[in-house]
C-alpha cells in the first residue's frame, strides 16, 4: 500500500512517459491515489494513537510529568512536563477528530475503496480521475489544517470532537481552525462519494449485474450515499459555528448568557445550543456506519476467500447493508437523550435504535454461518477478519443499553460509551483494516507480507486491545465519566482507578505490538516473497489483473460470467471459479 508499488517492476505501465511528480504526487490513477490515502491515513492513525498514549499517562498517573516527551510539549499543552487540563481536552478532541475523519474513513473509503473498488468492477479507473485527485489533496489540506492548529496560540480545538456550543464558540482560535479543517474534509468526502457512486453504477463491466457485485462494493456504495447525504448538514453547521465565532452571530447562543460573570450583552441571543447537536449527530451517526460498513466489506471478502465457500445469505447481507444505511439517518438523537427530550421523540429514537441493531445482527449472523461447513485457512488476513466478528459483537451489543433511555441515564457520558464504540472501531474496524492490508498487499506490491511477523502482530494486538477496552465497561458501570483530565478527582473515579492503570498499560503494550507490523510493512514492500496475480486463489475481479495492476488495470477488459463467491463448486477441477472465467457447462 505504498506510493512506490511498481518501482520494482513497472511492467506494462503506460504512464512511464510521465514525470515522477505526475505519476506519484499529482497522479490521477486511482491506485496511486488509493495508496496516497492509505499511507497518509496510517500516519494519522499512528499520530492519533500517540496522542492517546500521552493522555493515558495522565489518566494512570495524574499530575505526574510525562516521561521522555513531556518536556518537549508547549506550555499550552503541558506545564513543565505535566499535561494540563486544556492540553488534555485538546488531545482528546483531536484524537477523536483525527481517528474518525483523518484515519479510519480515509483508510476504509479513500484507501481501500479507491484502490479495490474499480478493480472489483473491472473498471480502468474512477469515473472522474481528476476529481479523485482533487479529493485526496483537499483531504490532505484538511489534515494539515488540523495538525497546524496544535501550534497556534491557545492550542488546538479542545471542546471534544463533538464541539458543542456555547463552549466551542467561547473557545480559543484552535476551534476556528478545526472548523475550517472540517469544511475541507467534508468537501473531500463529498467529491469522493460522488465519484464512487457514479463509478459503481455506470462502470461495471459486462455481465457484472448488481447482484454479482462483491459485498465489498455494496458496502462502499452504501457508504458513499451516507457520506453524500449526511455530510452536508454538518458542513452547514460548521458554517453557522464559524459565523458565531467570527461574525458574532448567535445561531447557537441563547439570550441571557453570562460568561465568567460577564453578561454577554453584545450578543443578539435567541439561538439554540441543541440545534448544533441535531446537525452534528445527523451526520455523526451515519458516520459511525461509514466507519463500520467498509470494514464489514473487507471482512466478508476475506472470509469468503479463506473459507473456500460462498458467503451465507449474500442477498440478505446486501439488503441488510442497504437497510442499515437507510435507518442510520433516523436514529441520531439517541446521542441526545439527556438533553431534556420528551417521551414522544425519545420513544421514536429508542425504537429506531433497536430496529437498526437488527440488520447488524443479520450481517454478523451471515458471516459466522459462512464458517459452517467451510475449510478455513488461518492465514494472517483471516485471523484479523475472524477477530473482527466477536469484537464487533461485543461493541454492538453494548450499544443496546445505550439505546434505551432508562439505562442511558446511568451510562451516558461514562466510560461505558467509550468502551462501546472503541470495541466497534478499534478491535473492529482497525482489525478489519489490518486484515485488508495483509490481504491486498500482494495485489498492490506483487509481494506477500511475512506470515510470521503477521502472527507476531496479531496475537499481542488482540490480547492488549482487549486489555485496553474491556475494563472501560466496568468503570462506566461504576459511573466513571469520560473526558476527565483527572479521574481520581471524583470519589467513584478514585475507587475505580486500578482499572485505569490496566487499560493504560494495555494501550502502551498495544503500541509495542505494532512494531512487527511496521517492520513487516516496509520490509515486505521491497523484500517480500514475490507472488503472481492471484495468490489467495480468489474469485473476484481484482485478482484477474496483474499484480501490481498496470495503469488502466486490465490487460484486456474482463467479462463476468458468475457471482462473486463461487468456491468449492461441486464437480469442478479447481475449488474456485473466478468471475471472469466462462464456466464450461
Amino acid at each position, binding site marked *: 500500500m505504498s506510493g512506490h508499488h511498481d518501482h520494482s517492476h513497472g511492467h506494462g505501465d503506460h504512464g512511464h512517459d510521465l514525470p515522477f511528480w505526475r505519476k506519484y504526487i499529482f497522479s490521477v490513477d486511482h491506485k496511486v491515489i488509493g495508496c496516497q490515502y492509505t499511507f497518509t491515513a496510517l500516519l494519522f492513525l499512528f499520530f492519533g494513537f500517540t496522542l492517546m498514549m500521552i493522555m493515558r499517562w495522565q489518566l494512570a498517573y495524574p499530575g505526574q510529568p510525562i516521561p521522555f516527551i513531556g518536556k518537549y510539549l508547549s506550555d499550552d499543552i503541558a506545564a513543565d512536563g505535566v499535561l494540563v487540563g486544556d492540553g488534555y481536552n485538546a488531545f482528546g478532541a483531536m484524537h477523536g477528530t483525527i481517528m474518525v475523519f483523518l484515519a479510519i474513513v480515509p483508510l476504509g473509503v479513500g484507501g481501500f475503496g479507491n484502490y479495490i473498488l474499480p478493480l472489483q468492477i473491472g473498471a480502468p479507473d474512477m469515473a472522474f480521475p481528476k476529481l479523485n485527485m482533487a479529493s485526496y489533496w483537499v483531504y490532505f489540506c484538511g489534515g494539515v489544517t488540523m495538525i497546524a492548529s496544535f501550534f497556534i496560540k491557545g492550542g488546538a480545538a479542545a471542546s471534544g470532537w463533538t464541539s458543542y456550543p456555547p463552549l466551542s464558540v467561547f473557545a480559543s482560535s484552535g476551534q476556528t481552525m478545526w472548523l475550517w479543517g472540517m469544511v475541507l474534509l467534508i468537501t473531500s468526502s463529498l467529491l469522493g462519494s460522488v465519484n464512487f457512486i457514479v463509478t459503481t453504477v*455506470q462502470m461495471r463491466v459486462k455481465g457484472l449485474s448488481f447482484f454479482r457485485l462483491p459485498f465489498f462494493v455494496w458496502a462502499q456504495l452504501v457508504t458513499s450515499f451516507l457520506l453524500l447525504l449526511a455530510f452536508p*448538514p454538518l458542513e452547514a453547521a460548521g458554517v453557522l459555528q464559524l459565523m458565531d465565532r467570527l*461574525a458574532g452571530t448567535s445561531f447557537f447562543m441563547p439570550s441571557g448568557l453570562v460568561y465568567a460573570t460577564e453578561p454577554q450583552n*453584545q450578543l443578539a441571543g*435567541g439561538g439554540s445550543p441543541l440545534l448544533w447537536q441535531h446537525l452534528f449527530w445527523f451526520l455523526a451517526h451515519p458516520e459511525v456506519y461509514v466507519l463500520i460498513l467498509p470494514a464489514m466489506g473487507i471482512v466478508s471478502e476475506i472470509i469468503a476467500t479463506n473459507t473456500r465457500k460462498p458467503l451465507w445469505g449474500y442477498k440478505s447481507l446486501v439488503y441488510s447493508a442497504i437497510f442499515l444505511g437507510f435507518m442510520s439517518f433516523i436514529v441520531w438523537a439517541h446521542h441526545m437523550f439527556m438533553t431534556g427530550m420528551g417521551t414522544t421523540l425519545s420513544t421514536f429514537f429508542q425504537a429506531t435504535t433497536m430496529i437498526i441493531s437488527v440488520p447488524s445482527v443479520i450481517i454478523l449472523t451471515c458471516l459466522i454461518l459462512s464458517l459452517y461447513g467451510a475449510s478455513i485457512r488461518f492465514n494472517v488476513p483471516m485471523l484479523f477478519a475472524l477477530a473482527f466478528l466477536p469484537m464487533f459483537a461485543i461493541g454492538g451489543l453494548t450499544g443496546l443499553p445505550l439505546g434505551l433511555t432508562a439505562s442511558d441515564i446511568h451510562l451516558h457520558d461514562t466510560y461505558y460509551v467509550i468502551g462501546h464504540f472503541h470495541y466497534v472501531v478499534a478491535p473492529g474496524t482497525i482489525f478489519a483494516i489490518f486484515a485488508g492490508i495483509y490481504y491486498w498487499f500482494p495485489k498492490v506490491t506483487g509481494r506477500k507480507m511475512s506470515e510470521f511477523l503477521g502472527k507476531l502482530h496479531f496475537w499481542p494486538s488482540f490480547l492488549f486491545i482487549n486489555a485496553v477496552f474491556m475494563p472501560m465497561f466496568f468503570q462506566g458501570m461504576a459511573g466513571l465519566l469520560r473526558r476527565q483530565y483527572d479521574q481520581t478527582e471524583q470519589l467513584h473515579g478514585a475507587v475505580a482507578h486500578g482499572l485505569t492503570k490496566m487499560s493504560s498499560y494495555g494501550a502502551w503494550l498495544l503500541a509495542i505490538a505494532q512494531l512487527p507490523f511496521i517492520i513487516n510493512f516496509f520490509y515486505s514492500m521491497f523484500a517480500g516473497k514475490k507472488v503472481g496475480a492471484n495468490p489467495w486463489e480468489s474469485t473476484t475481479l481484482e485478482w484477474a489483473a496483474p499484480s501490481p495492476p498496470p495503469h488502466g488495470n486490465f490487460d484486456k477488459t474482463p467479462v463476468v460470467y458468475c457471482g462473486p463467491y463461487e468456491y468449492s463448486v461441486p464437480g469442478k477441477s479447481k475449488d474456485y471459479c473466478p468471475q471472469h472465467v466462462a464456466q464450461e457447462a
Partner: protein
Amino acid sequence: MSTTVIPHDLEPHPLTGMYNGKFGIWLFLASEVMLFGALFSTYVLLRVGAPPGQWPAHGSEILNVPLATLNTAVLIGSSVTMVMSWAALKMKKLGAARVWLTVTFLCAGAFLVVKYFEYTDKFSHYQVWLNEPIKVGEHEVTTIKGHLTADCPKLEVSEKNGAYSVTEHVMITPDAEPGGHAHGEAVKIEASKVKRISNFGPRHSPYLATYFTMTGLHGLHIVGGMVVILYFILTGGSIWKRSQEKYTNRIECTGLYWHFVDLVWIFLFPVLYLL
C-alpha cells in the same frame, strides 16, 4: 494517462440514461439539497422557538422587497438564457450558444451588484438598545434605529467576534417614523446608557444572521457558477473543436447546476423577504 478510456464518459448508461458527468452533477445537487436543507431547518427552528416580536412580521420591515423581486426576475431570466445556450448547441450553433452564455453571465453579475447594494445599505444602518428608556421627540423609547452622524466617535470593535461597543457616546439620527414625518435631529447617548449597539449586519438578530448566511452562501454559489460559465465562454471554441458532444455535455451540466442555484433562490426569496 490519456491512454485509459473511461466508459460512459460521453454515451449514456442504459440504466441511468445519463453519461457520467450528468449523473455526477445530479448526485452533487442532491448533497446541495441537504446543505440548504440544514440551513432551512435552522431558520424554522430559530423562528418557531423565538419569543414574539423578535422576528419581523414581514421581511419588508427590514429588507428591500422591490430590489429582491427584481433580482428574482433577473435570476430566472439567467436560467432561461442558460438552457437557450444548451439548445443552441444542440442545433450546432456555437456562436449563438456563446452569446446566450454571455447574457447568463451578465445576469448573474447584475444579481450580485443588486445584492451588493442591499448588503451595504444594511451595514451602514444601526440600532441602539438602551439600559433605561430615554425621551426622543415626544415619546420614551428603549431602542433607536438610525444612521450614525458624521461627528459620532468611532465605535470600538472587539477583535474576537467583531462586536461593537461605545467608547464615550454615540450620535445617531433616528429613522423616520412609519407614519412618515421627516428625520428627527440627531440624538446623543452616553456610553453608560447603551446596553448594546449593532448595525443591521449578521450579528444584529437571528433573523439577519439567517438572512446573511443563507443569501451569502447562495451568493458564493453564484460566483462559483460565474467562474465556470466564464471558463466555458472562453475555452468554448477549442473544446468544441475537439468534441462537440463533450462541450454540449459540459454546458448541460453547468446548466443543471445553474438552474439549481436559481431554484434555491426561488425558495429563499419568499422565506426571507415575504414571511
